[in-house]
């Protein structure tokens, strides 16, 4: 459906100064994401996958290379890119509906229109009944759903997800993965998910980007055909999982490096 949401990452490098030494967090990242595509990025801790997300969303602007959204170079956060963090990061002093409405603060829409959007998105994540609750009254899974509504309410071109279900229990996680797939499909939105959960990556992604650490780089990119991604119990799913795990293992030494002296 959308003609917008083409993400181009060209030859991106990112370096940090740690204890007086330079560490290469990302090295020559090349990736393009088509409109409406769902890309999962998997990798062990320290492969720079979250760093990549922070560059795309614009929280970190200090890198070499090019990151283009619909052909425009990005300069700082704008509302066409939304992110869901691992922690829900809701404002504890705002009710659920006001937290979602935060995403529309910068929007020029008239107030009734905004209210309607907030209502629709709460419905989308199944939390209409909790519009007036404070974040502290919600469970972890519910909070994360509010965070997803907050990210989507402004109808961004691209949705970035930084281990969004990493802090949830297994049952809630499986439920929310299904929910997320339903939501993203129905909105037809472009999405990039960062995770270390291989099954999650296969279940949600159209393509899987496997990253290796030190320096953070793309090892391989695997397509997920629609049939095998649907059913976790299928042999094709299991086969793909083995492939990804092997891909991760090859660049993943048994003992994580000895960067810190």
């Amino acid at each position, binding site marked *: 459906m959308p003609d917008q949401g083409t993400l181009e990452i060209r030859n991106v490098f990112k370096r940090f100064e740690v204890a007086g030494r330079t560490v290469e967090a990302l090295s020559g990242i090349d990736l393009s994401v088509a409109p409406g595509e769902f890309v999962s990025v998997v990798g062990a801790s320290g492969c720079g996958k979250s760093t990549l997300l922070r560059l795309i969303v614009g929280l970190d602007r200090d890198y070499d290379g090019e990151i283009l959204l619909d052909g425009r170079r990005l300069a700082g*956060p704008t509302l066409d890119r939304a992110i869901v963090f691992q922690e829900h*990061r809701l404002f504890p002093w705002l009710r659920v509906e006001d937290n979602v409405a935060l995403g529309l603060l910068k929007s020029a829409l008239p107030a009734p229109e905004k209210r309607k959007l907030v209502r629709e998105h709460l419905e989308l994540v199944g939390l209409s009944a909790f519009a007036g609750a404070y974040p502290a009254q919600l469970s972890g899974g519910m909070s994360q759903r509010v965070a997803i509504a907050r990210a989507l309410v402004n109808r961004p071109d691209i949705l970035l997800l930084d281990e969004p279900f990493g802090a949830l229990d297994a049952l809630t996680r499986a439920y929310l993965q299904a929910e997320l797939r339903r939501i993203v499909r129905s909105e037809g939105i472009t999405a990039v998910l960062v995770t270390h959960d291989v099954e999650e990556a296969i279940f949600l992604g159209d393509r899987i980007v496997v990253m290796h650490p030190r320096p953070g780089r793309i090892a391989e990119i695997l397509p997920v055909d629609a049939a095998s991604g649907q059913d976790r119990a299928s042999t094709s799913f299991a086969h793909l999982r083995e492939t990804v795990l092997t891909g991760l293992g090859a660049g993943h030494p048994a003992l994580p490096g000895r960067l810190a002296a």
Partner: protein
Amino acid sequence: MSAVTIIPPAGEAAATTEPKRRWNGLILPAVLILLWEGASQSGLVDDRLLPSLGTVAGRGWSELADGRLAVDIASSLARDVSGFAIGSALGIPVGLALGLSRTLDRFVGPTFNAAKQIAVFAWIPLISVWFGVGEAAKIAFIALAAFTPVVVNTWAGARSVPRTLGEVADVLALSRWQRLTRLEIPSALPSIFVGLQLGLIYSWLATVGAEYFMTIGPGIGGLMTEGREHFHMDLVILGVLLLGGIGLGLNKLAALMETSALRWKRY
């Protein structure tokens, strides 16, 4: 100097007091009052030093009847509230500015921290030279006493706005004003209330001090000074009771305001 007496919340053990046992708290005061009354009635102690309860109550009643007591209480309260209002109205913006601006924090913060080391009563001689010994000087002093804790706590609250939430504001591209009203002020609010409560305690202390040192005009401090000069112990004890009672009332009021403003913290 800001002596910040934050009372830590009572823990789980304290919260388990059964209602019936609460009455135990009245036993000790009752015993003390009985001893006091007995000593005073029996003449064991000079009743000029320890007037009986009846005498104190009688003094309270006669002061109330001729309208003087009401004037004293009203004057002290009016002074306290005006000074507190001025002090906190200045203190909150100053604290926010120090907490949110890295530049101000670096350039003005240390000076403020140095100046607050001067025990607040040490300002009285200077303030009485600058403002005289009338109402203006008293209110200026009370405002100063409230100002310091309000600034200190607002400052601390504003500088510890969670960075993770700051990033949410970045990602949502909030304007400076939206950031201030949706994120920074609400996030600092619990700290600001701690500051206001302390400010209230300090301004009440300063009200008493101002009335001792700058003795023109009615007030509870004046009443007690008079009681001391004429050796009217009943008047002095009446003053002590009033100071405690009103201080308690003001604190309860502040706590009430805090709970209603910080509803989101209740869950």
